């Protein structure tokens, strides 16, 4: 059983991209790259079963429940960090497993602030809470929609490392517009353009790859040249 999407999205009668066939390798990270407005997030939303702006023609096979993490951490200001991490259980009317939540908050390094409110957190800390909330859902498929885009470079690298470590073994799709990020964390990188999906060469070696890894930089250079050629 795999997560698969086939089809295309029309927006006001015009196709956003040529028909695509997207298949997520089980237990692996797939990164979806592309310029703004290419339809990356639309594909992710379709896999998540969320409403999209355009009209989708095709079919989605998403046999597993998914967990979602987006650029907006969407922490609720009236709940403590513990309450935010346990939001899913609360929304489903299930018993909240306090011990598990504390373990997850510990894993993202925020155990000491479990009882405080998100108002005083930095952007990076908010995304760490969001990551713990995503893990609390314990879903086999995790969809990341530009989760680290608003973070400063150092925090972003730290978050990538943390996410790769904590999401290991799950089927992950990450939408990003940052080539370096995609090449660092993903086992497979796909580029979405007008002509549909294209495979991008990925450096060998285990993820997360070092940001100064020569193979990664070579891939990144080639990818950037390709993006520039595509934009011309």
């Amino acid at each position: 059983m795999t997560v698969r999407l086939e089809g295309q999205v029309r927006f006001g009668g015009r196709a956003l991209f040529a028909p695509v066939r997207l298949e997520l390798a089980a237990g692996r990270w797939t990164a979806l790259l592309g310029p703004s407005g290419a339809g990356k997030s639309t594909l992710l939303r379709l896999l998540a079963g969320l409403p999209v702006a355009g009209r989708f023609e095709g079919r989605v096979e998403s046999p597993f429940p998914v967990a979602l993490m987006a650029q907006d951490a969407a922490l609720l200001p009236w709940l403590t960090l513990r309450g935010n991490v346990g939001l899913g259980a609360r929304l489903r009317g299930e018993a909240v497993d306090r011990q598990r939540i504390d373990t997850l908050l510990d894993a993202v390094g925020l155990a000491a602030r479990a009882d405080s409110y998100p108002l005083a957190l930095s952007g990076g800390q908010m995304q760490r809470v969001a990551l713990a909330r995503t893990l609390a859902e314990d879903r086999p498929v995790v969809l990341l929609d530009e989760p680290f885009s608003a973070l400063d470079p150092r925090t972003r690298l730290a978050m990538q490392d943390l996410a790769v470590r904590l999401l290991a073994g799950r089927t992950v799709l990450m939408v990003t517009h940052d080539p370096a990020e995609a090449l660092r964390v993903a086992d497979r990188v796909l580029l979405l353009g007008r002509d549909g999906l294209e495979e991008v060469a990925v450096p060998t070696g285990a993820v997360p790859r070092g940001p100064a890894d020569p193979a990664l930089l070579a891939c990144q250079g080639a990818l950037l040249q390709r993006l520039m050629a595509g934009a011309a």
Partner: protein
Amino acid sequence: MAGRLRGRVAGLVAGLLLWQGLIALTGLPPFLLPGPLAVAEAAHAFRSLLAMAALHTAAVMAAGFVAGSVAGCAVGLAMAASPALAARLRGPLLMSQIVPVFALAPILTLWLGYGMAPKVAVVVLVCFFPVAAAFLDGLDRPSPACMDLARTMGATRWRTLWHLRIPLALPGLCSGMKLAAAYASVGAVIGEWVGGSEGLGAVMLHANGRMRIDLTFAALAVLTVLAVAFHGVVCHGLDRSLRRFVPVPGGRGWAGEPRLSG
């Protein structure tokens, strides 16, 4: 804080001096425009009348504001929970605001008598709409990021309403209630003009009729202080109790949300 207060007092004193000076210069007769001293004298002479009237008006405002807010919350919530009901209620709700309260007040007096009830009813009519509209608006436009989360988390409709949409709508509700608190005095005075002999509105009407313009002004001054104080107390209380519900800054999608302070 102290500097701002001093500035306000200075502005008030300057305004009063200007007022008194204008009277002295133009020689306007006191039955057209009494000076601040004459108004102060009237306020002193009729202090127990004004105090009783102010108490009555304050009670009408408070009762009407509370009842109007409760009714507004209930209608906003019901409309948000049921789109079919919302479609059906939209017209009648708008009608209740298009018909002037002035036109309705005599009818309310006819139905509810000359006691406090018709006056409270006018305040309810005035307060109810901004509360219902602001709450419904907040309930209907929750943060998209939160709604996406709720969907992927498999939340039920009612739990989403209770745990997300209502708390997310509280800042909007708060804005509506502040607006309603500002309108409450208008409703109370209209109610008092039309029916009965109690309250600041009635005092103003009777004083005007007997050419006691100084007493009219005195009642107006008391009403102004009362209205400003009422609005201030309501705003302070709302801001304090809703502190926790102000959106987390920095997150995307929150930028346009109203702030609670001010």
